[in-house]
Protein backbone atom coordinates (compact mmCIF):
# COMPACT_ATOMS: atom_id res chain seq x y z
CA UNK A 1 0.00 0.00 0.00
CA UNK A 2 2.97 2.28 0.64
CA UNK A 3 4.30 1.82 -2.89
CA UNK A 4 0.77 2.48 -4.22
CA UNK A 5 0.67 5.77 -2.27
CA UNK A 6 4.10 6.69 -3.57
CA UNK A 7 3.09 5.94 -7.14
CA UNK A 8 -0.08 7.99 -6.72
CA UNK A 9 2.00 10.89 -5.46
CA UNK A 10 4.41 10.48 -8.37
CA UNK A 11 1.54 10.57 -10.91
CA UNK A 12 0.59 14.08 -9.88
CA UNK A 13 -2.51 16.03 -10.81
CA UNK A 14 -3.05 16.58 -14.55
CA UNK A 15 -5.37 19.31 -15.78
CA UNK A 16 -7.51 18.02 -18.67
CA UNK A 17 -5.50 14.82 -18.26
CA UNK A 18 -2.39 16.32 -19.88
CA UNK A 19 -0.90 19.19 -17.88
CA UNK A 20 0.93 17.97 -14.77
CA UNK A 21 0.77 21.16 -12.70
CA UNK A 22 2.76 19.66 -9.83
CA UNK A 23 5.83 18.67 -11.81
CA UNK A 24 6.15 21.22 -14.60
CA UNK A 25 8.01 24.34 -13.39
CA UNK A 26 5.86 27.50 -13.53
CA UNK A 27 2.67 25.56 -14.48
CA UNK A 28 1.03 25.73 -11.07
CA UNK A 29 1.69 29.46 -10.67
CA UNK A 30 0.52 30.20 -14.22
CA UNK A 31 -2.79 28.37 -13.71
CA UNK A 32 -3.37 30.00 -10.32
CA UNK A 33 -2.62 33.46 -11.72
CA UNK A 34 -4.91 32.66 -14.63
CA UNK A 35 -7.72 31.64 -12.31
CA UNK A 36 -7.31 34.83 -10.32
CA UNK A 37 -7.11 36.95 -13.45
CA UNK A 38 -10.23 35.36 -14.93
CA UNK A 39 -12.23 35.93 -11.72
CA UNK A 40 -11.09 39.53 -11.55
CA UNK A 41 -11.78 40.44 -15.17
CA UNK A 42 -15.11 38.59 -15.22
CA UNK A 43 -16.33 40.22 -12.04
CA UNK A 44 -15.20 43.70 -13.08
CA UNK A 45 -16.93 43.38 -16.46
CA UNK A 46 -20.10 42.12 -14.82
CA UNK A 47 -20.10 44.95 -12.29
CA UNK A 48 -19.67 47.43 -15.13
CA UNK A 49 -22.20 46.00 -17.58
CA UNK A 50 -24.39 43.43 -15.76
CA UNK A 51 -24.11 41.15 -18.81
CA UNK A 52 -23.75 37.63 -17.46
CA UNK A 53 -22.88 35.67 -20.56
CA UNK A 54 -20.45 38.25 -21.90
CA UNK A 55 -18.79 38.41 -18.45
CA UNK A 56 -18.01 34.71 -18.71
CA UNK A 57 -16.45 35.30 -22.12
CA UNK A 58 -14.38 38.19 -20.79
CA UNK A 59 -13.39 36.11 -17.78
CA UNK A 60 -12.22 33.31 -20.03
CA UNK A 61 -10.21 35.73 -22.15
CA UNK A 62 -8.69 37.03 -18.94
CA UNK A 63 -7.76 33.49 -17.96
CA UNK A 64 -5.99 32.87 -21.28
CA UNK A 65 -4.06 36.13 -21.23
CA UNK A 66 -3.08 35.97 -17.56
CA UNK A 67 -1.99 32.34 -17.82
CA UNK A 68 0.09 33.00 -20.92
CA UNK A 69 1.64 36.13 -19.45
CA UNK A 70 2.52 34.51 -16.15
CA UNK A 71 3.82 31.40 -17.92
CA UNK A 72 6.15 33.22 -20.29
CA UNK A 73 7.40 35.61 -17.61
CA UNK A 74 8.24 32.71 -15.28
CA UNK A 75 9.82 30.58 -18.04
CA UNK A 76 12.00 33.41 -19.32
CA UNK A 77 13.27 34.09 -15.79
CA UNK A 78 13.92 30.38 -15.29
CA UNK A 79 15.83 30.22 -18.56
CA UNK A 80 18.01 33.19 -17.52
CA UNK A 81 18.69 31.50 -14.16
CA UNK A 82 19.68 28.28 -15.92
CA UNK A 83 22.15 30.15 -18.12
CA UNK A 84 23.66 31.81 -15.05
CA UNK A 85 23.82 28.44 -13.30
CA UNK A 86 25.78 26.97 -16.20
CA UNK A 87 28.24 29.87 -16.17
CA UNK A 88 28.74 29.48 -12.43
CA UNK A 89 29.24 25.72 -12.74
CA UNK A 90 31.83 26.22 -15.49
CA UNK A 91 33.54 28.86 -13.39
CA UNK A 92 33.70 26.61 -10.33
CA UNK A 93 35.05 23.72 -12.40
CA UNK A 94 37.70 25.92 -14.03
CA UNK A 95 38.60 27.49 -10.70
CA UNK A 96 39.43 24.06 -9.31
CA UNK A 97 41.33 23.08 -12.45
CA UNK A 98 43.38 26.29 -12.73
CA UNK A 99 43.83 27.08 -9.03
CA UNK A 100 47.46 27.83 -8.24
CA UNK A 101 48.54 27.70 -11.88
CA UNK A 102 49.60 30.45 -14.24
CA UNK A 103 46.07 30.64 -15.62
CA UNK A 104 44.45 31.33 -12.22
CA UNK A 105 42.62 34.67 -12.62
CA UNK A 106 43.25 35.51 -8.95
CA UNK A 107 47.00 35.54 -9.58
CA UNK A 108 46.87 37.86 -12.57
CA UNK A 109 49.19 40.82 -12.07
CA UNK A 110 47.33 44.13 -11.79
CA UNK A 111 47.69 46.44 -14.81
CA UNK A 112 50.37 49.07 -14.24
CA UNK A 113 49.38 52.74 -14.34
CA UNK A 114 50.17 54.10 -17.81
CA UNK A 115 52.95 56.64 -17.76
CA UNK A 116 52.00 60.21 -18.63
CA UNK A 117 53.37 62.12 -21.62
CA UNK A 118 56.98 63.07 -21.19
Amino acid sequence: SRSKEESEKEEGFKLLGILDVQRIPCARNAILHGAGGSLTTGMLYFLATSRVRRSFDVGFAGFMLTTLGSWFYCRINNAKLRVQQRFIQEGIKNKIVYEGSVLDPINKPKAENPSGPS
Partner: protein
Amino acid sequence: MAHPSQLGFQDAASPVMEELLHFHDHTLMIVFLISTLVLYIIMAMVTTKLTNKFILDSQEIEIIWTLLPALILILIALPSLRILYLMDEVNDPHLTVKALGHQWYWSYEYTDYNNFGFDSYMVPTQDLTPGQFRLLDVDHRMVIPTESPVRVLITADDVLHSWAVPSLGIKMDAVPGRLNQTAFIVSRPGIYYGQCSEICGANHSFMPIVVEAIPLKHFENWSTLMLENS
Protein backbone atom coordinates in the same frame (compact mmCIF):
# COMPACT_ATOMS: atom_id res chain seq x y z
CA MET B 1 14.87 4.40 -16.25
CA ALA B 2 11.17 4.09 -16.98
CA HIS B 3 8.82 3.03 -14.21
CA PRO B 4 5.56 1.08 -14.63
CA SER B 5 2.62 2.97 -16.20
CA GLN B 6 4.83 6.00 -16.81
CA LEU B 7 3.38 8.54 -19.24
CA GLY B 8 5.93 11.37 -19.25
CA PHE B 9 9.59 11.56 -20.14
CA GLN B 10 12.33 10.08 -18.01
CA ASP B 11 14.53 12.48 -16.04
CA ALA B 12 17.09 14.16 -18.26
CA ALA B 13 20.72 13.06 -17.96
CA SER B 14 22.14 15.26 -20.71
CA PRO B 15 21.84 18.98 -21.52
CA VAL B 16 20.07 18.25 -24.81
CA MET B 17 17.40 16.19 -23.07
CA GLU B 18 16.92 19.00 -20.53
CA GLU B 19 16.25 21.39 -23.40
CA LEU B 20 13.83 18.91 -24.95
CA LEU B 21 11.97 18.63 -21.64
CA HIS B 22 11.66 22.41 -21.38
CA PHE B 23 10.44 22.63 -24.96
CA HIS B 24 7.89 19.90 -24.28
CA ASP B 25 6.57 21.82 -21.24
CA HIS B 26 6.30 24.98 -23.34
CA THR B 27 4.41 23.25 -26.13
CA LEU B 28 2.19 21.36 -23.70
CA MET B 29 1.04 24.61 -22.07
CA ILE B 30 0.10 25.97 -25.49
CA VAL B 31 -1.77 22.76 -26.31
CA PHE B 32 -3.56 22.92 -22.95
CA LEU B 33 -4.71 26.48 -23.57
CA ILE B 34 -5.93 25.66 -27.09
CA SER B 35 -7.85 22.65 -25.72
CA THR B 36 -9.41 24.82 -23.02
CA LEU B 37 -10.41 27.40 -25.62
CA VAL B 38 -12.00 24.78 -27.87
CA LEU B 39 -13.89 23.27 -24.93
CA TYR B 40 -15.18 26.68 -23.92
CA ILE B 41 -16.28 27.47 -27.48
CA ILE B 42 -18.09 24.13 -27.74
CA MET B 43 -19.95 24.83 -24.50
CA ALA B 44 -20.82 28.33 -25.63
CA MET B 45 -22.11 27.11 -29.01
CA VAL B 46 -24.21 24.39 -27.44
CA THR B 47 -25.88 26.68 -24.90
CA THR B 48 -26.47 29.84 -26.93
CA LYS B 49 -29.84 31.01 -28.19
CA LEU B 50 -28.28 33.45 -30.69
CA THR B 51 -28.37 31.86 -34.11
CA ASN B 52 -28.30 33.46 -37.55
CA LYS B 53 -28.71 31.22 -40.56
CA PHE B 54 -27.98 34.00 -43.06
CA ILE B 55 -24.49 35.24 -42.18
CA LEU B 56 -22.52 35.61 -45.41
CA ASP B 57 -19.09 36.95 -44.37
CA SER B 58 -17.26 38.01 -41.26
CA GLN B 59 -13.96 39.66 -41.97
CA GLU B 60 -12.89 40.29 -38.39
CA ILE B 61 -13.14 36.75 -37.09
CA GLU B 62 -11.57 35.36 -40.27
CA ILE B 63 -8.58 37.60 -39.69
CA ILE B 64 -8.37 36.53 -36.04
CA TRP B 65 -8.52 32.82 -36.71
CA THR B 66 -5.89 33.14 -39.43
CA LEU B 67 -3.39 35.29 -37.56
CA LEU B 68 -3.71 33.61 -34.17
CA PRO B 69 -2.77 30.09 -35.34
CA ALA B 70 0.11 31.57 -37.35
CA LEU B 71 1.38 33.30 -34.22
CA ILE B 72 1.03 30.11 -32.18
CA LEU B 73 2.96 28.14 -34.79
CA ILE B 74 5.77 30.71 -34.75
CA LEU B 75 5.89 30.49 -30.93
CA ILE B 76 6.31 26.74 -31.20
CA ALA B 77 8.61 26.67 -34.24
CA LEU B 78 11.30 29.06 -32.98
CA PRO B 79 12.35 27.07 -29.89
CA SER B 80 11.95 23.87 -31.88
CA LEU B 81 14.41 24.99 -34.55
CA ARG B 82 16.80 26.23 -31.88
CA ILE B 83 16.92 22.78 -30.31
CA LEU B 84 17.16 21.09 -33.69
CA TYR B 85 20.36 22.96 -34.50
CA LEU B 86 21.63 22.55 -30.95
CA MET B 87 21.33 18.78 -31.33
CA ASP B 88 23.49 18.89 -34.46
CA GLU B 89 26.44 20.54 -32.74
CA VAL B 90 29.44 18.29 -32.17
CA ASN B 91 31.94 20.08 -29.95
CA ASP B 92 35.32 18.35 -30.14
CA PRO B 93 34.43 14.97 -28.63
CA HIS B 94 36.84 13.48 -26.09
CA LEU B 95 35.88 9.91 -26.99
CA THR B 96 34.41 8.07 -29.95
CA VAL B 97 32.53 4.81 -29.48
CA LYS B 98 31.20 2.65 -32.27
CA ALA B 99 27.89 0.89 -31.70
CA LEU B 100 27.02 -1.94 -34.07
CA GLY B 101 23.60 -3.49 -34.24
CA HIS B 102 23.33 -7.21 -34.84
CA GLN B 103 20.52 -9.69 -34.69
CA TRP B 104 19.98 -9.58 -31.74
CA TYR B 105 22.60 -7.80 -29.65
CA TRP B 106 24.73 -4.66 -29.72
CA SER B 107 28.50 -4.55 -29.86
CA TYR B 108 30.65 -1.61 -28.85
CA GLU B 109 34.14 -0.73 -30.05
CA TYR B 110 36.51 1.71 -28.37
CA THR B 111 39.21 2.36 -30.96
CA ASP B 112 40.52 5.79 -30.00
CA TYR B 113 43.69 4.84 -28.17
CA ASN B 114 43.88 1.08 -27.94
CA ASN B 115 41.56 -1.25 -29.70
CA PHE B 116 39.03 -3.12 -27.63
CA GLY B 117 35.44 -4.08 -28.06
CA PHE B 118 32.77 -6.30 -26.60
CA ASP B 119 29.29 -7.64 -27.23
CA SER B 120 26.32 -6.60 -25.16
CA TYR B 121 23.64 -9.27 -24.80
CA MET B 122 20.44 -8.97 -22.82
CA VAL B 123 20.45 -10.92 -19.55
CA PRO B 124 17.83 -13.69 -20.03
CA THR B 125 14.95 -13.56 -17.57
CA GLN B 126 15.88 -16.87 -15.96
CA ASP B 127 19.44 -15.62 -15.29
CA LEU B 128 18.50 -12.33 -13.62
CA THR B 129 20.05 -11.66 -10.22
CA PRO B 130 18.11 -9.72 -7.54
CA GLY B 131 18.09 -6.02 -8.43
CA GLN B 132 18.42 -6.50 -12.18
CA PHE B 133 15.70 -5.32 -14.53
CA ARG B 134 13.84 -7.73 -16.79
CA LEU B 135 14.39 -7.13 -20.55
CA LEU B 136 16.63 -4.14 -19.80
CA ASP B 137 19.85 -5.32 -18.19
CA VAL B 138 22.79 -6.53 -20.25
CA ASP B 139 25.90 -8.52 -19.54
CA HIS B 140 28.32 -5.77 -20.66
CA ARG B 141 27.31 -2.12 -20.48
CA MET B 142 28.64 0.66 -22.65
CA VAL B 143 30.76 2.68 -20.24
CA ILE B 144 31.53 6.33 -20.84
CA PRO B 145 32.99 9.17 -18.76
CA THR B 146 30.69 11.85 -17.32
CA GLU B 147 30.85 15.50 -18.35
CA SER B 148 32.83 14.64 -21.49
CA PRO B 149 31.52 15.06 -25.05
CA VAL B 150 31.19 11.58 -26.51
CA ARG B 151 30.64 10.78 -30.18
CA VAL B 152 28.82 7.57 -31.06
CA LEU B 153 29.08 6.11 -34.56
CA ILE B 154 26.20 3.79 -35.18
CA THR B 155 25.83 1.18 -37.84
CA ALA B 156 24.39 -2.28 -38.30
CA ASP B 157 25.70 -5.61 -39.40
CA ASP B 158 22.62 -7.13 -40.96
CA VAL B 159 19.23 -5.36 -40.83
CA LEU B 160 17.97 -2.01 -39.62
CA HIS B 161 18.23 -1.35 -35.89
CA SER B 162 18.01 1.85 -33.87
CA TRP B 163 20.15 2.91 -30.93
CA ALA B 164 18.02 4.80 -28.45
CA VAL B 165 18.54 6.03 -24.88
CA PRO B 166 15.55 8.19 -23.84
CA SER B 167 17.11 9.82 -20.77
CA LEU B 168 19.99 11.11 -22.91
CA GLY B 169 17.63 12.27 -25.65
CA ILE B 170 19.22 10.06 -28.28
CA LYS B 171 17.76 7.93 -31.01
CA MET B 172 19.71 7.12 -34.15
CA ASP B 173 19.03 4.50 -36.77
CA ALA B 174 21.59 1.79 -37.33
CA VAL B 175 21.67 1.23 -41.08
CA PRO B 176 23.81 -1.48 -42.72
CA GLY B 177 26.48 0.09 -44.89
CA ARG B 178 26.05 3.54 -43.34
CA LEU B 179 27.67 5.30 -40.39
CA ASN B 180 25.36 7.58 -38.45
CA GLN B 181 26.90 9.96 -35.95
CA THR B 182 25.47 11.40 -32.78
CA ALA B 183 27.10 13.14 -29.84
CA PHE B 184 26.11 13.71 -26.25
CA ILE B 185 27.38 14.74 -22.82
CA VAL B 186 26.20 12.88 -19.74
CA SER B 187 25.72 15.38 -16.92
CA ARG B 188 25.72 12.99 -13.97
CA PRO B 189 26.97 9.47 -13.15
CA GLY B 190 24.40 6.73 -13.48
CA ILE B 191 23.04 3.88 -15.54
CA TYR B 192 20.75 4.76 -18.44
CA TYR B 193 18.58 2.25 -20.26
CA GLY B 194 17.22 2.12 -23.77
CA GLN B 195 15.86 -0.42 -26.21
CA CYS B 196 16.27 -1.15 -29.90
CA SER B 197 13.86 1.13 -31.73
CA GLU B 198 13.61 -0.34 -35.22
CA ILE B 199 11.91 -3.65 -35.93
CA CYS B 200 14.64 -6.14 -36.68
CA GLY B 201 13.24 -9.61 -36.34
CA ALA B 202 12.07 -12.06 -33.73
CA ASN B 203 14.11 -10.73 -30.82
CA HIS B 204 13.80 -7.03 -31.57
CA SER B 205 12.39 -6.44 -28.07
CA PHE B 206 15.27 -8.31 -26.47
CA MET B 207 18.34 -6.30 -27.41
CA PRO B 208 18.48 -3.45 -24.92
CA ILE B 209 21.08 -0.70 -24.59
CA VAL B 210 22.64 0.19 -21.26
CA VAL B 211 24.94 3.20 -20.90
CA GLU B 212 26.94 3.48 -17.68
CA ALA B 213 28.38 6.93 -17.01
CA ILE B 214 31.23 7.09 -14.49
CA PRO B 215 33.80 9.72 -13.54
CA LEU B 216 36.81 9.94 -15.85
CA LYS B 217 39.26 8.43 -13.39
CA HIS B 218 37.13 5.31 -12.99
CA PHE B 219 36.61 5.19 -16.75
CA GLU B 220 40.38 5.08 -17.25
CA ASN B 221 40.60 2.21 -14.77
CA TRP B 222 37.80 0.38 -16.54
CA SER B 223 39.33 0.78 -19.99
CA THR B 224 42.72 -0.43 -18.69
CA LEU B 225 40.97 -3.49 -17.25
CA MET B 226 39.14 -4.14 -20.52
CA LEU B 227 42.38 -3.92 -22.46
CA GLU B 228 44.07 -6.44 -20.16
CA ASN B 229 41.15 -8.84 -20.47
CA SER B 230 40.83 -8.60 -24.27
